């Protein structure tokens, strides 16, 4: 019986792991979210944003500290509101890129829609991060986090005033340790 259950679980996991959508996928531990790779260079991401979304993101920059180090890193935040773009069947309302030292370290995507659409987002995230080397944890009510290899992805179903929104973000695991303020922002 136990063997049967394990076999069934493995089959379910493997079928989930192959699920992809047009906006989110996973390859070699790199998560592709809205066509953006963690670690990509600033210029590449900005070019893609301009091409794919027909927008010019508004950027801010400041020098920041990473834990313990006394080197100054440049932290740049570029955000925009895409039109007619969808994330896992839910319409995108906002995309914000975070760079440290010119490299993409985090993408925040806010999707807005009905509950059933937002459930699709969660299912897609489960499919991508639901491999045997990832850990899913519940951060709180309607809030989940998947930890896979080098990246952390979070899906947070909004509550109260922000009900109906899902906030997805990707963040390097090292940066969660080295720049806790980045994870908290």
């Amino acid at each position: 019986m136990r063997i049967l259950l394990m076999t069934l679980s493995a089959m379910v996991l493997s079928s989930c792991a192959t699920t992809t959508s047009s906006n989110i996928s996973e390859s070699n531990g790199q998560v592709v979210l809205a066509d953006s790779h963690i670690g990509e260079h600033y210029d590449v991401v900005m070019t893609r944003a301009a091409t794919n979304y027909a927008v010019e993101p508004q950027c801010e920059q400041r020098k920041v500290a990473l834990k313990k180090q006394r080197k100054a890193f440049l932290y740049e935040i570029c955000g925009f509101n895409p039109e007619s773009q969808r994330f896992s069947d839910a319409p995108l309302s906002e995309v914000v890129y975070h760079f440290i030292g010119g490299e993409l370290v985090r993408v925040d995507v806010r999707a807005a829609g009905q509950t059933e659409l937002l459930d699709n987002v969660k299912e897609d995230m489960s499919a991508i991060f639901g491999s045997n080397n990832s850990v899913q944890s519940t951060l709180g009510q309607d809030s989940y986090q998947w930890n896979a290899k080098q990246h952390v992805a979070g899906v947070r179903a909004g509550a109260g005033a922000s009900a109906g929104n899902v906030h997805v973000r990707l963040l390097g695991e090292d940066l969660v340790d080295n720049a806790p303020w980045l994870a908290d922002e």
Partner: protein
Amino acid sequence: MRSNLSVASYSDYEHLYSATQLPNETTAKNWPLMQQITAMLFLFLLCLVSVSEASAQESQALLDKHFIIGGQPIESDEYPWVVALARNEEDSLFQRQFCGATVIADTWVLTAAHCLYNSRGVVISNSEFRVAINTIDLQETNVEELLVTNIYLHPEYDHRANNPHSDLALIELATSSGITPVKLSTKATAELIGLQATVIGWGATDITDASDPTFPSVSRSVDVPIVSMEVCNAPISYNDAIYQNQLCAGYAAGGRDSCVGDSGGPLVVAFEGEFQQVGVVSFGYGCAEPNFYGIYTDIPYFIGWINQYVLVGEPEFEPETLLTRGVDNRTYEGTQSDTGATSLFGLLLIGAGLLLRRRS
């Protein structure tokens, strides 16, 4: 052990207080024993009260002044060999600057190894950064920036280590800087303990909000004493995490320290009016936190490695081949300690010397 320490401390204080004449043996012998003991006790109490008051005032002053560097802007010709590392991009120099460095030979610059890693822990290429020279103000326009042809990281440096010792790198410039280089100290590390040093850089003056620190445009300097490994590795401080090829500098009360953006910059000591670089800004727990001193790469320890690329002098001691961390009594035996007890004892001896001389 303790008496050895004290004797060494006494001789060290002797040169620091050159105006003080020490009592000769004959004069001391002529004093009645009771009078000598009374004088010593009186002086001891006097020293205790004055030192406690001074320490309390200094501690409070340092804590009140929350700014990290806690120093002041430098003058343009004060430290001409201090240069800035800046990303090779379109932004202003102020935004692009990420570390400090020093010119140690015409086409050679010394910095911290960790400065040459990006946020993902990958070594940056020569073309990704430049060396800005002859400026103290990063807002200045038309600052000269030199291209880099080679970088050499110390082979023992481990960017992922909890304590990344051997945090040192050499940068070879494409063209001459034309700057008179700073002299690198070749003195034994033990000789540096207790000396007042100066750290220079464009680092943050306030990191209350770590995600948005305050950075100056004009380079600043602050004076910090070099502290012993015993103090730095005490349980209340770095608890044996610091290696013998690192220097600790700062105040137990905190308040004055190097900080984010100062990495790679110099820690210097003035010897007979000439600055000698003794350290490279490496890391620290936060900035200017009480009991957590700034950690610097110990330059004299690495003179041999630097000499492989550019001749800067011969070390005046034999660096330990076995790298240990924590307190090593063999290294520090008989040297000056900056513990409060030793300082008090030194002051007591000097005070006694003054009194005895006046009586004679």
